[in-house]
């Protein structure tokens, strides 16, 4: 049985996953599962999915060897370049898959949740492309912080709905999107943004994202010639870019590393629980109330994690670590200045771990490391500039990086 195969009949990966939703959503989840199963067994669906990702989405994304960083660290670092995908991150893979599926199932409206706005922008993009209506739920606090992405969504024709419940951030946006879905379920597909939520989402989103890992493993063979990288590294918010990447290497000998934000490390500090329709590792207090996650990168500010990651951790197939904000800022600068690639703050978590692990010797010198660069950092430049002391003048922290 493959390590990253289908979940069981209850939608479980080991003890995790499932379909913990109100009865009003059970039918919709079943219908979606059926729809996905049929589509995914249909060559024509795969063809259309892959065709759009290629002609519209910019796939395949290349693998880039980081010559200067590798030299400094003594390990060979390769990046899988999801930052070059249309809209600037891997999120487009998933939304194209779901939008196609929704259309096939006769649903012409999409709803989506978003935190930093990347998944919202991707969803709005897929909706525009396919002529669907799109509503994006976004916490009122995040709307204030991510004005540009809000405008991008509106420009793409989506309606952005301000979520005023709870802490008014991502977790609450998921709640509100699910609530909205309950009442519009006949005409509307809920386009969830990561490998989370009730079955079949964690499985389905992983399958749509597995194009990252499949591409990468073929490219790896051509490029490096060895059968597989020693390490395969990806950042973990909900866990979709990591799951999609790991899917290409789960059967290989590579060590799989998921890097969470220290302030949202559901796998390091979470406890098994149920939220947003799934059983997984979740940041919560002693009473079972869900904690807010806090990190420099909005896309990793999620108190849960996809259930398959909880499973991969449990069976020791993947290892989950974390990087803190200052390590991430440093990695953000290092990649920019040594390689000419400004990474998303989310993606910089993966780089940060690699830098640390290479320096401490946790990664043996000469190892081959593949890091998924899940997105580009343009969206984060304003925030980082504030953190580093503003745009003008010589500002602290932009001296040439040396480490």
């Amino acid at each position: 049985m493959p390590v990253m195969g289908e979940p069981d009949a209850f939608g479980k990966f080991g003890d995790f996953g499932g379909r913990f939703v109100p009865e009003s959503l059970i039918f919709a989840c079943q219908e979606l599962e059926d729809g996905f199963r049929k589509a995914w067994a249909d060559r024509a669906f795969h063809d259309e999915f892959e065709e759009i990702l290629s002609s519209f989405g910019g796939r395949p994304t290349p693998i880039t060897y980081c010559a200067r960083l590798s030299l400094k660290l003594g390990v060979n670092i390769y990046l899988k370049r999801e930052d070059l995908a249309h809209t600037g991150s891997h999120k487009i893979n998933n939304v194209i898959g779901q939008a196609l599926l929704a259309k096939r199932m006769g649903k012409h409206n999409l709803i989506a949740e978003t935190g930093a706005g990347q998944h919202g922008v991707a969803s709005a993009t897929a909706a525009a492309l396919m002529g669907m209506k799109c509503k994006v739920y976004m916490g009122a606090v995040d709307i204030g912080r991510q004005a540009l992405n809000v405008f991008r969504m509106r420009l793409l024709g989506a309606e952005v709905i301000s979520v005023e419940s709870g802490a008014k951030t991502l977790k609450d946006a998921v709640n509100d999107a699910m609530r909205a879905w309950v009442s519009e379920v006949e005409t509307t597909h809920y386009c969830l943004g990561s490998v989370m939520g009730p079955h079949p989402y964690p499985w389905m989103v992983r399958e749509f994202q597995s194009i990252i890992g499949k591409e990468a493993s073929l490219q790896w063979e051509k490029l490096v010639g060895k059968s597989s990288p020693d390490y395969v590294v990806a950042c973990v918010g909900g866990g979709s870019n990591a799951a999609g990447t790991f899917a290409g290497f789960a059967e290989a000998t590579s060590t799989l590393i998921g890097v969470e934000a220290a302030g949202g490390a559901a796998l390091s500090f979470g406890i098994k629980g149920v939220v947003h329709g799934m059983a997984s590792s979740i940041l919560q207090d002693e009473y079972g109330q869900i904690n807010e996650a806090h990190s420099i990168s909005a896309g990793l500010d999620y108190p849960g994690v996809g259930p398959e990651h909880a499973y991969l951790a449990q069976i020791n197939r993947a290892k989950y670590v974390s990087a803190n904000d200052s390590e991430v800022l440093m990695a953000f600068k290092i990649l920019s200045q040594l390689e000419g690639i400004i990474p998303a703050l989310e993606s910089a978590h993966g780089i940060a771990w690699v830098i640390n692990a290479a320096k401490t010797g946790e990664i043996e010198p000469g190892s081959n490391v593949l890091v998924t660069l899940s997105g580009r950092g343009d969206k984060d430049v304003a925030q980082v500039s504030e953190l580093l002391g503003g745009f003008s003048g010589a500002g602290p922290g932009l001296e040439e990086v040396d480490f």
Partner: protein
Amino acid sequence: MNFIDLETHLKSIRKSGRPILVPYITGGITNDWMHLVEELAHLGADAIEIGIPFSDPMIDGPVIQEASNLALQRGATTESILLELAQLNLEIPLVAMTYYNLVLRADPTRFANWCHEGGVSGTIIPDLPPEEMRPLETALDKESIVNVLLIAPSTTDERLKFIAGKSKGFLYTIGVMGTTGERTDLAESATILAKRAKQVTDLPVLVGIGISNEIQAQEVTKVADGVVIGSAFMRRILEDQSGKSALKFFSSLRSAL
């Protein structure tokens, strides 16, 4: 507290020909919420649903969300609410409603234990599907507490039978595709679903979610055995923390049914 069997109790009311009326109140919502529970019993509630607040209440609309947040801010916890209930001595059954994470965090056995201490006869966990309820059921069984299951307008016939067969105490009928909250018109879906439920089960069929006033309650109880009144009641508590207007509303409902 004297233990009351939920199903027996509700069936005897149904037998009397009177519609069953179950108000919902968020545990810990005010300082004297226990007093409100007692008042509801005096005013003729046939059972009372006690909500244990959760930070992420997926099926709840704005009113219950606000009530949950308030109660949490006031320091309410699963244990505190259930153990406070132990001080009551009512003639009607209590049903604890919450989300599964709180059960898991407490651990099902401890949770069942607290329920028992609080004199609770049944539980409603809307995000716990029947396929996953074994651990909770096992724990509840030991305390003779039942777990009430829910059906929704989207539930298929086959599944409706399956759920009705597994539910105990009563069958909670989600009247409308949506979250808890008041609706101007009674959803047609509520009556249709109640009818479908009545055809497959002898359990009392109670309609919840979306019942906002006497007229709707009267309408729906032509088919269903009773109603659960949540947001319409809680909204009045949020507006007037003394609970007077909420209780007045409940009285008029009771007279209408």
